[in-house]
């Protein structure tokens, strides 16, 4: 007789209370840079992916380009950073969220189109006990035929272009595509090159994007809730 169910019951519930309550534990999210009204602008040159922009009244942040290099967190002229994670954005020309029928039951197919171990590690944790995706009625399927949402990570390498395209076409309507991580949005540090397409939008139409490198599990869950309309999206470009 296996004792594993007993061990499991003895550990109790370890899941975060989010979204009912705020999740403030340290280390849950890497956070993101906030726009600043009184920066001199020296910090803008330190950003390797042009995510910071010098504008008239300070520094604006286009978080969709941020690769979390932390260079604007340290040093002189450091920007203030928040610790939030609900930063899913609507892609340009993206479709609206899925309707009421999907609010309590959503099936997701995750596709690795060149994602590094960071995104892989974070996405594997979304149905782990600390975050527990299943309590929202969201499940991961192994076949795109049963999927409503395609969650894609990585800059879409050449060898994964056609499999991604095929998976998208194998999904029945209605369907949505979520680009996970900055690589999936615009190629990240790999950009658009001979080996990478430079983002999922080059291959299939994208509806929602999750910035971050990598986006923490709660950001991914927030995106999936946004797909069903249970959470709000926010613009990734922010002004001071």
């Amino acid at each position, binding site marked *: 007789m296996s004792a*594993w169910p007993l061990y499991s019951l003895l550990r109790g519930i370890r899941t975060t209370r989010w979204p009912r309550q705020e999740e403030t534990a340290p280390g849950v999210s890497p956070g993101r840079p906030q726009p600043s009204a009184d920066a001199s602008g020296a910090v803008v040159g330190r950003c390797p992916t042009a995510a910071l922009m010098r504008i008239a009244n300070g520094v604006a942040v286009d978080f969709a380009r941020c690769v979390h290099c*932390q260079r604007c967190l340290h040093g002189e002229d450091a920007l203030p950073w928040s610790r939030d994670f609900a930063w899913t954005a609507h892609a340009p020309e993206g479709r609206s969220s899925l309707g009421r029928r999907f609010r309590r039951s959503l099936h997701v197919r995750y596709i*690795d189109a*060149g994602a590094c171990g960071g995104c*892989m*590690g974070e996405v594997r944790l979304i149905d782990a006990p600390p975050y527990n995706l299943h309590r929202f009625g969201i499940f991961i399927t192994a076949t795109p035929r049963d999927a409503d949402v395609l969650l894609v990570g990585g800059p879409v390498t050449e060898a*994964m*272009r056609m499999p991604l395209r095929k998976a998208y076409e194998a999904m029945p309507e209605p369907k949505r595509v979520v680009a996970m991580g900055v690589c999936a949005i615009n190629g990240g540090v790999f950009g658009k090159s001979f080996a*990478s397409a430079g983002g999922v939008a080059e291959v299939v139409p994208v509806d929602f994007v999750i910035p971050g490198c*990598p986006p923490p599990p709660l950001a991914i869950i927030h995106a999936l809730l946004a797909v069903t309309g249970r959470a709000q999206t926010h613009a990734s470009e922010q002004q001071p």
Partner: protein
Amino acid sequence: MSGRAELLDLLAANARPDVGVGGAHGALRAEVTPKAVPDLAAKLIEHGCQFATLVVEPARADGGFTLRYFFYAANDATLIEITAAIAPGSSALAIADRVHAADWHEREAEDLYGIRFEGHPFLGDFVLHDTVWPEDVAPMRRVFDPHRRVAESGLGTAWRPRRILDEAGAIAFPVGPIWGDYHEAGLWLLETPGEQIRQAQSRLFYKYRGVEKIAESQTPDHCVLLAERFSGNSAFAHASAYCRALERIAGCSVPARARALRAVFAELERMRYHAAAIAELAGSTALAVGKSMGQEIEERLLRLTGEVCRHRYLFGVCAPGGLAWQPDNAALRRLRTGVTDAARELVGLERLLAHSSSCLDRIEEMGTLTPELAQSYGVVGPVARASGQKLDLRLALPYGAYADTPVEVPLEVEGDGYARLRVWFAEIRSSAAMIESLLLDLPDGAITEACPPTEGVALAWVEAPAGAAFHWLRLDGDGRIARWRIGPPGFRNWHAFHRALKGAAFQDFPIILASFGLSVAENDR
């Protein structure tokens, strides 16, 4: 047992007149004709040396190439570099039939540079899949423009898998490239007559992002980002190796505090990597509670890392010359307690798994890599240590703080899945102990030293969580990257993976895959 003197004699016997001793770490260098390379390489292996990596560099003047074969002798921390020049249009001789650890290096060189290796039976369709890339595309050549797309979709319908098994009614069962819930992209072909896997092949490089090519002509500073992000779950290990190469070229020495903290963070990353691998292995044997417990511990370590280092995966921590910022002592105290708690929980999980016969049944005597095969394929990391090869770069070629800190390296000989699991748990214990002792005696002082990029060449290495990784770097006169070679542990471990599948049943494939704990992204770059 080889002493430096013996090695010098061996090299001298085979090389051109210039056998030299040079380099910052006392490497033995020999320049040989391409024809002499296979024999010399085989003799070095017989002498007990290990193959490290193969670096191909386009020669400056003509259109030829320089091949650099790196070996190391574990017993006395000696590096050996053998250089051969290939004239344009001529081919090299393969060493892979005798030094099997070099197999994937040669295949990669053929695909990316177009160098023909005579005597290698399996060239082609390796990094550049025949289904996507036209013939005669060699991206790593100087003339190739990294921003222009040459791949075509739709070339693929004529591709046939290579068949090794010849048995009536046998099939080549494909697993991938999109499969399972969260598996990485890759294609494995299991050749089987129905029940038993007789032969398996791995077809990786679906995630080839061309890091070595897009790094050329970039600033070294920018490439720290690439070094972290091509394999996010061993980001710190690769970033620190890259930074060490830069520091070696610049000739700057890292402050003691930064050296010690680099070791602390590397061991922290190792602990978290192994915790994730343990959770995956438990999950693959359908032990859901075990997987959940492992994932909880992994998340705990990630949050600890995120709290102390501001990023869960240690991005932006390592910088050339030391660390990017100075951690405060309160945070380091929290790190100590956090690591101790996590290690204790993992010991508890180990005890539970060792008593779970349903889990052990599926990993014991399953996916066995015999010590002979492990030696022949030159496997590294926990996979090697579970198959009787006591190989660890922290002991063989000590770097950073490991030169002064005792490193305890576990050794198992069965080579099956359970042996690898035991090695992971033992390494976690040893890492926790190392973090404890390093933090206790942490020196104060600066956290970084200026490291301006200068022209030069260097080889650096690191014992990444998955095994030995080598970074070779050449900076040009402007201080930009001329050539950056990343030799990941996957080239040996993924290479040997197919031997571990032989004789297993279909259903065991995901379990054996999880018991190797390898990363496709790290291998494909």
